[in-house]
């Protein structure tokens, strides 16, 4: 039976982890490689890096991070943030990323997803959808949540599946950082309209939220950042909890 995945996400800026696990025995709390290794040793089903480096001159730092991580972690590694074109995707894959997540570029130029999924295969193309509720619908935002594209998120999700995305990483902008739980209606709305896996993101504050994301949100995988930070919960605790709620996980 296929298991639901738990994916810890690390925000990386200028090659350093911004919010990370604060373990006492950690030699360098800002080292993304060491943090990723802790997650994979702890049973993470996948690791996600989100590069939030703002300036262009420091963009290359992520390649070095990915290269080092992929030599130490032998679970899938997804990298997103600032991916603009086929060249960026190619570079990340060559450094050892298994999947690349595309956000703004997928909205601005549909060819990026179409061409990259043909060139590299759908299995490594994740389209990240940042969505915010507006009335009775959700709209897709770009540029790290700064710009409203006005595009309907549910229709966009269907279009991305047609364009060749292998998975959708759906983040509720309303919930991100609030720790009140995923936007279940958004997750289940998208998941029921597409036939590719949906990764739920944005808003996790406790382990019940992970359960809801899968059971109610119909997500194939749940991504979380802050609950794993500062040792609030380990990946193993999360998995044991999901298991106790009857959700199939890899233990």
């Amino acid at each position, binding site marked *: 039976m296929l298991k639901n995945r738990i994916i810890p996400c690390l925000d990386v800026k200028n090659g350093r982890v911004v919010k990370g696990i604060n373990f006492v025995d950690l030699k360098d709390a800002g080292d993304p490689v060491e943090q990723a290794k802790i997650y994979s040793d702890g049973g993470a089903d996948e690791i996600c890096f989100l590069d939030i480096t703002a300036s262009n001159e420091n963009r290359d730092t992520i390649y070095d991070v990915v290269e080092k991580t992929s030599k130490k972690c*032998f*679970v899938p590694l997804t990298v997103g943030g600032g991916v603009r074109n086929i060249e960026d995707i190619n570079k990340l894959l060559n450094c050892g990323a298994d999947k690349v997540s595309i956000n703004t570029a997928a909205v601005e130029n549909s060819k990026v997803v179409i061409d990259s999924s043909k060139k*590299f295969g759908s299995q490594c193309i994740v389209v990240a959808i940042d969505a915010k509720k507006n009335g009775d619908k959700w709209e897709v935002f770009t540029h790290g949540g700064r710009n409203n594209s006005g595009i309907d998120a549910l229709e966009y999700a269907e279009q991305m599946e047609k364009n060749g995305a292998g998975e959708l990483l759906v983040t509720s902008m309303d919930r991100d950082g609030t720790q009140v739980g995923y936007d279940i209606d958004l997750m289940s709305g998208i998941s029921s309209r597409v036939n590719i896996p949906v990764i739920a993101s944005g808003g996790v504050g406790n382990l019940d939220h992970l359960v809801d994301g899968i059971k109610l949100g119909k997500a194939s995988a749940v991504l979380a950042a802050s609950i794993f930070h500062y040792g609030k919960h380990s990946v193993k605790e999360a998995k044991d909890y999901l298991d106790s709620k009857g959700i199939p996980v890899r233990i």
Partner: protein
Amino acid sequence: MNVTIVDYKSGNISSVINSFREVAKEKVTIEVTSDLNKIKSSDKVVLPGQGSFKSCVDALSEIKGLTDTLNEFVINYKKPLLGICVGLQMFADVGYEEIETKGLGWISGKVSKIDNQNGKYKLPHIGWNQINIVKDSKIFKDIENNSHMYFVHSYEFVPNDKKVISATTDYSSNIVCSVEKENIFGTQFHPEKSDRIGLKIIDNFISL
């Protein structure tokens, strides 16, 4: 001893390279090449594969003499080869992804789309699934039945002779996820992405 990972410009093979180097350490040389002479003289060959069946077969054919060299390695010399994902699928006579495409024909059978039962099952089949070991395979030494492996695929290999099947996985139906036929080994899952247990399979192959 040396193990060659065939680099035929089909998708991303850095994870395969990293995992084999991690396992091999100093005891085994891991070559990554499409050089025909190097492939011929290696002790073992790994055939990775990402993207579609057609794109992988096309990429193999792009390199002049590569298919013949692999045939010679596998059929004449009978040296061990491990196919991963589409690398395994290409063992078949024919694949139906995009368009009907001839495979390597080492293990008689076809590659067709997984039946998603009218949308009941999402495709690609992405994530960790358990393998059901149905035959003693050399690459499963010390691997427990029902171990989790990482999968990413929408197509499945359906061999004619069921005796070659060494493991299946349950997704929509019993999908063939590992085969062994004499010196030919293949996994539909990605041992290079399947954590320690996956590295053990790689170690088993290297240690054959």
